[in-house]
């Protein structure tokens, strides 16, 4: 039929790991947030693959909701970033250290 599902799932795991590493490694908040999107996409790919393998619609329905969540998250995230940039004019997380840690 098609490519074995495991390849899709491994691709999802790889994508998820790249996203997670990106968040830990990068300091630019926009890039960090893009890495979150990568992780959400990895989850979506996993959901769709399981959905096909299990012949069950629930996985695809979940992806539908994840898309809504991603959109809502990005709206608020951009709002926060914009409101910070008005004060700081920098997108590098290290430049922002009023708070310790």
């Amino acid at each position, binding site marked *: 039929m098609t490519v074995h599902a495991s390849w899709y*799932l491994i691709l*999802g795991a790889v994508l*998820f790991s790249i*996203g*997670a590493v990106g*968040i830990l490694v990068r300091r630019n*908040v926009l890039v*960090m*947030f893009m890495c*979150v999107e990568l*992780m*959400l996409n*990895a*989850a979506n790919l*996993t*959901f769709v*693959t*399981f959905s096909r*393998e*299990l012949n*069950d619609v*629930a*996985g695809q*329905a*979940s992806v539908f*909701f*994840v898309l809504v*969540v991603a959109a*809502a*998250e990005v709206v*608020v*995230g951009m*709002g*926060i*970033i914009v*409101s*910070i940039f008005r*004060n*700081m004019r920098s997108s590098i*997380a290290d*430049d*922002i*250290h*009023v*708070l*310790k*840690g």
Partner: protein
Amino acid sequence: MNLGVVPTLALVVPKINYWAILPDLILIGGALAVLALSSLTGRRFPAIWYSVSTAFLALATLGSALYLWFDITGKHHHAFVAIDAGIAVDGFSQLITMLVAATLFLVALSAPGYLRREGAGGPEFYVLSMLSASGAVLMGSANDLIVMFLGLEVLSIALYVMAGSNLKAIASGEAALKYFILGAFSSAIFLYGIALTYGSTGSTNLASIANYLAKNLLEHNGVLLAGAALMLLGFGFKVALVPFHAWSPDVYQGSPTPSVAFMSSVAKAAGFAGLIRVFYSALPTLRLDWQPVLWVLSVATLLVGSVLAVVQTDVKRMLAYSSISHAGFILIGLVAANPSGIAGSLYYLFTYSFLAVGSFTVVALVAGKGDSNHSLASYRGLSKRHPYLAAAMALMLIAQAGIPFTTGFLGKFYVLAAATDAHSYALALIAILSSVIAAFFYLRLGVLMYAPDGGELAVAPAVASGSASGSAQAGSASSAAATALAGTELLDAEDELLPVTRKGSWFAVPDDRGGDPILDDPAMAGSGVALVVSGDEAISGEVVNGPGAVGELRAPEIIDVPSSEKAGRDIGAAISIAICCTVTVFFGVFPSMLIDFAKQAKLLF
């Protein structure tokens, strides 16, 4: 692909039991109504009405949850699932709903004073807190991982904004950013965990997962384990368990204090509710796998939380670490994984939320205008300046330390009893050790407030955290400004400058009792200290014609606190604190009612 006639599908919409989702409907509908009202009236609506209507809606939510509670605990009734098994209406979900509603009520009462001080009118804070509460309620009653995820997102997204809602403070924006990035990260992890769990069990419904796992022994349960671990990671971030706690002190410190009061109790309650539902009711078959992990997390959380709280000099950070250590206690009930453990955790969550709201409300009042006096030194001699405030704070601290005849003691007692029931003696010992350490910093703050030499030291009102450039400077409004600058005593180890000026020697302004603008008499009102708080992070203070000042003196980055607000203005906060104190003492002395309540709050599955 054949493009034939699309068959007409009979859509069998599930029966919607509106009673079952009544608390959520009230919260979301109320939020929309408040929002619509404020836009239609063009913001000419008196700001206090937002608070009143939010408090009223919170009470209505509480009432509806109580109604459902009596409905399902009645003789001929029982817990049920509603809307195609999307949510479970059981004692557990109703207890979480009541907790959230009570917190919302208290925060709605105490917020207007803060918002007035910060000049942030408008309904947004209330609308967001109601929406956030609806997410928490949804999460507490979710019977499906997708519902839980959406509840978590509604809760978190509203909280991110609430953390950053003080647009004038740079720290608030930074707190929001940090919370947002780590929150989104943890949500993504949680989601991937859901995906793996779905793949390995074939469903996202908690009851179906439990059912499938009870009937099938998975030969390869690696994916399921990975999914469970990732979900645990996601919850761990939300409730700030120790390896994932790093965001919490920063976010607590930077966020507006009413938002912190709200998030510290609601986010924790919702997070633990989700954790209990997923692990205790959906994955009980994996208990031998998750119990040791929770044990380790619990120990780490207990110890790190209390040890790091000791070295804090900022009260909000201290309370953040103390809330981390409380999370460790709540986790003990889960490690015990028996009904009495769950009841203990719920009791702890319920009483902790009152303690958290009460403490942070006091903190907001002590912080005063600008929401910046959070150093320990601001609390020195508080009992002289505000005896009632100090007494309330002392009660909150005593309860959090776990002194008998308070709810805090009983909470610790019940989870420890559950742990010993489950033969986790080591865990119980570590918990006691942690609470001894914790008692130290609670009592230290208490002693500071009641210190006999409290009157000697007048804490300067100028506590400005560092600006973007990180160069915090502080000056004091005296004729010898240079002396003051040079002699500013640095108490703080955390790059936060804390000028402590000795009254009479350095501080020329007579009768300086700064740092307590809310309830204090307007002693300095006539002294002509003008407030200049710029919208930006560089806070400039300009003292004009101060009694001791020689002409005009510009001291960069001072917040001079105006004491023009009359004593006792913040009635809402006073009521809120009074309720928290009453609950803490009353249920500390008469515990049976509340513990029965927690014991009856059973999970459906």
